[in-house]
């Protein structure tokens, strides 16, 4: 069955911008207004972060946004309630949920998938879900609810493992730009990074790729787009929301600064 993520890649004649933000940040009720503003301004995919107290793959900016969101009272039940009618307002843009396994496990993986599918969510990114555990325990459930899992690939991921990830995926591959957590300064020499992007491109994988981690503005977005179907921005957008009274306006302005 086709879903919105696959359609987005099929339909677009241009590079895709995927924007991450944390649910319930900067204020509890900002989730839906920010999502709508992002899509209205031209973001092609939306990743909604489910806040977790101990996010291992995230840098200080996203971790801090999670802490604030949790203090605001965000949790899985609240999030699904907020997203209940989202498809009447945002019918086509793919929505992914990104977070860590423990809150999903406590909510119940099947419950989580059912609620996510009911809200019109298209994909799920759980960076600490091991491939083997996914295949053995969760793949069937994800399929039943037509939720696409997205897996990460790093410069250290072995080619055989990249092939396996590609086989298990039918949405897109999340290329982590270099060593580090989200929002980190890119310490790799540009040549090294480009060689890695090129190496992945040369593998002729089945799935399209989005590059993430360290993508912050128009220049880094366009650079990443040379080697992939698009890119993902997270921490830089969270920073743009940090001290704003009007989150939707900040969202609109941010997307325009990247795309125009």
């Amino acid at each position, binding site marked *: 069955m086709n879903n919105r993520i696959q359609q987005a890649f099929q339909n677009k004649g241009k590079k895709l911008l995927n924007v991450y933000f944390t649910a319930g940040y900067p204020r509890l009720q900002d989730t839906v207004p920010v999502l709508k503003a992002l899509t209205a301004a031209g973001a092609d995919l939306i990743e909604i972060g489910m806040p*977790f*107290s*101990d996010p*291992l*793959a995230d*840098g*200080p900016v996203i*971790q801090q946004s999670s*802490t604030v969101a*949790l203090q605001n009272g965000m*949790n*899985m039940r609240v999030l699904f309630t907020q997203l209940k009618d989202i498809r009447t307002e945002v019918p086509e843009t793919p929505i992914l949920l990104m977070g*860590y*396994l*423990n*809150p*999903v*496990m*406590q*909510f119940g993986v099947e419950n989580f998938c059912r609620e996510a599918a009911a809200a019109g969510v298209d994909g799920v990114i759980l*960076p*600490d*879900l*091991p491939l*083997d*555990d996914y295949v053995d325990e969760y793949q069937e459930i994800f399929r039943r609810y037509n939720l696409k899992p997205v*897996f*990460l*690939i*790093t410069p*250290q*991921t*072995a080619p055989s*493992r990249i092939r396996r990830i590609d086989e298990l995926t039918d949405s897109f591959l999340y290329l*982590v730009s270099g*060593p*580090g*957590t989200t929002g*980190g300064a890119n*310490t790799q020499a540009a040549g090294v990074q480009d060689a890695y992007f090129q190496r992945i491109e040369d593998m002729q994988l089945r799935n399209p790729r989005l590059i993430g981690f360290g993508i912050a503005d128009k220049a880094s977005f366009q650079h990443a787009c040379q080697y992939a179907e698009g890119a993902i921005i997270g921490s830089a957008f969270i920073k743009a929301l940090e001290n704003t009274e009007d989150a939707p306006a900040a969202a609109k302005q941010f997307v325009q600064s990247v795309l125009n």
Partner: protein
Amino acid sequence: MTPTTYKEPTARGYYGQFGGAFIPEMLYPNVEELRDNYLTILADPEFQREYQQLLRDFVGRPTPLFEAKRLSKKYNTRIFLKREDLCHTGAHKVNNTVGQILLAQRLGKTRIIAETGAGQHGVATATVCALMGMECIVYMGSVDMERQRPNVERMRLLGAEVRPATSGSQTLKDATNEAIRDWISNPVDTHYIIGSVVGPHPYPDLVARLQAIISEEMRKQLLEKTGSELPQYVVACVGGGSNAAGAFYHFLDEPSVKLVAVEAAGHGITSGHSAATSVLGKPGIIHGSRTLLMQDEDGQITEPYSLSAGLDYPGIGPLHAYLAAEGRAQFISIEDEAALRAVAECSRLEGIIPALETAHALAALGQLGAGPNDVVVINLSGRGDKDLETYMKYADSIK
């Protein structure tokens, strides 16, 4: 299903439902490299020769098994103290760091990172890095840096950089998060020396094997002193659980030996200020493994509390979670005050000032139900010098 042995995790690192390797892809190559090599390296005769020699000449092993006659009289049973406090650097932690630094060398690593709570593991790591001439960075919660200052100064003197962890409760859990993030950012040249039987597979098994020297020596020493290799009780405190894993290891598959794990109840189990994971925890994922974990109903990790900086961890190692679930080990919770009283008791009756962590194990003596003919071994995991400021602060309550 009860396995034939409690010691061996499955190939994917599971003890029953606990264990595994729940890590972001960024860590996968590092952990895979370790997983694919650790057993071969540990079994290598040249590794063993070097490891055993360092344990003997640098660490000061074997540590004595001391018959504590006055404590024995008080509790009307036969009590032995395994003197890990006499290890170089003052705690059992160095058994593991000596082994892991040799492992890191063989993996071609040049930079070492570690996390520390009470500072004992940080000091042990800084020590072996100095010994081997390796760069060393230790993450420590800023609250712990305050309450364990002597150990911070020791690490610095040994040439390590101590980096404060300022998120969350600013204790061991947060130091561990920071160390993992460092490893994500430095995936090629860096080895992460985890200090307890926690983290993704193979760490729980690796650390348990390196600490198993404790129970290996206990068996030999018990045979000499009591005529039997097997005591009736082995007692150890549990934060993450490395000293307990080492003390239990060679008794795990001896059903006649009662294994007693002692957790920190802080201000009391139901007080909201506790670290008694086996009572308050439920299955969840922390720092890369599935284990018992203190968390709220949404799966957010709860801030643990204990006066002891080495025990306020919201999880326990997956082996211990398994021992608890199977009923193989008995878990006892001890409050701060009882631990402080045990510090005074051991100091005055035996002339040994124990670490605050260890004092929790000593405080469980009255709850064992051991009889006059029973042999009880307590793993005296560390010495109390580092806790002197805390002891002075609570001097009134430990009279």
